[in-house]
């Protein structure tokens, strides 16, 4: 085994022991064809060679069938997989002696991330884009991602050859009804976010309303706070202002923001109905 193969094996083993469900390595240069400048690995870490991506921390079966939509939003435990990413970054520097940059989970400006973690997962061979949008792993479905950019010359993984989307039940539903579970629950032509079709058994997205998706995914987060703050500032009546500030929307939003690492994602409806995102096992 050569040096890069041994180092890759060492880091992947550490990732799995630290709690990752899957781990892969992407070529840093592969981002150039897909991501704009300032959002590529070498823009964040000069001399970047590879990107190590870990996935995991999926919701449990009980979370998916909870009757309150707010359960999944508080179970979106991205910090669990971020902890694995941070540990990997530390190990790459201390054990391999190469620079390692943990990709910050926040945004660079507005809603734009420093680096697309979904793109990183795809390029590391850990999954592919679903018709609904999120990258799905063919064995584990929907999961959270974290990534470390490094100057270490690790062995790169090939792209995923067997996409999870569309799942067999979705192909059957398309043949039968001309729609899929995700398109039916959130249809763009009926006030939702998604438009698409299956073509040669492959997902083809034809429309996506990112603005509306934002209102659902970040209902009680930065966007919701800004919208309600604007409404409050525009309200001339003192008592009416008080109702807005003390009301459920503002209160829930402030709780979510102050626990932002566990409350960022707040809409899972396209994934809740997705057969590829989570297996609906028979549970007692």
């Amino acid at each position, binding site marked *: 085994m050569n040096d890069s193969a041994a180092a890759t094996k060492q880091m992947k083993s550490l990732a799995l022991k630290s709690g990752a469900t899957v781990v892969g390595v992407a070529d840093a240069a592969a981002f150039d064809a897909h991501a704009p400048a300032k959002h590529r690995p070498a823009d964040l870490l000069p001399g970047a060679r590879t990107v190590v991506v870990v996935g995991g921390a999926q919701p449990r079966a009980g979370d998916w069938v*909870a009757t309150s939509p707010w359960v999944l939003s508080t179970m979106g435990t991205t910090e669990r997989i971020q902890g694995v990413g941070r540990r990997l970054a530390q190990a790459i520097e201390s054990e391999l002696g190469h620079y390692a940059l943990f990709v910050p989970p926040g945004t660079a400006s507005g809603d734009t991330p420093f680096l697309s973690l979904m793109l990183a997962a795809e390029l590391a061979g850990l999954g592919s884009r679903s018709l609904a949008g999120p990258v799905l792993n063919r064995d584990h479905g929907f999961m959270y991602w974290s990534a470390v950019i490094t100057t270490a010359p690790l062995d790169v993984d090939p792209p995923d050859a067997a996409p999870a989307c569309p799942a067999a039940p979705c192909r059957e539903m398309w043949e039968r009804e001309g729609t899929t579970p995700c398109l039916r629950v959130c249809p763009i032509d009926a006030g939702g976010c998604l438009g698409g079709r299956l073509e040669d058994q492959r997902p083809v997205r034809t429309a996506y309303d990112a603005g509306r998706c934002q209102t*659902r995914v970040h209902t009680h987060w930065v966007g*919701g706070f800004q919208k*309600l703050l604007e409404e409050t500032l525009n309200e001339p009546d003192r008592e009416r202002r008080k109702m807005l500030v003390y009301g459920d929307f503002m209160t829930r939003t402030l709780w979510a923001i102050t626990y932002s690492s566990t409350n960022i994602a707040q809409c899972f409806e396209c994934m809740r109905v997705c057969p590829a995102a989570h297996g609906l096992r028979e549970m007692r």
Partner: protein
Amino acid sequence: MTFFRLDPTVYARHKDEVLRLSNSFQTIEQRGLSDREIADRLGLDERTVTEIRVVAERDCYPLDEWERAIEFKRKACADWAALALKRPDLKEP
């Protein structure tokens, strides 16, 4: 140095085009442009484009759409629980 303030008329003139070109609204087939690339294309400076994009991301829908989001999730979640748990009584009317 004074605080950067976006001119509302500049915002109104360019917001749709900036959003359409930006990486905020990603599509699978086509990569979005960086703020610098959009600035070059529209003849604006990068800081102005960044500010237009960030404001426009939040300006897509009025507050009412946030309320609709709550209702959408409440209903979709209840409907799925009813189906998955085989409990029709959980379904929202």
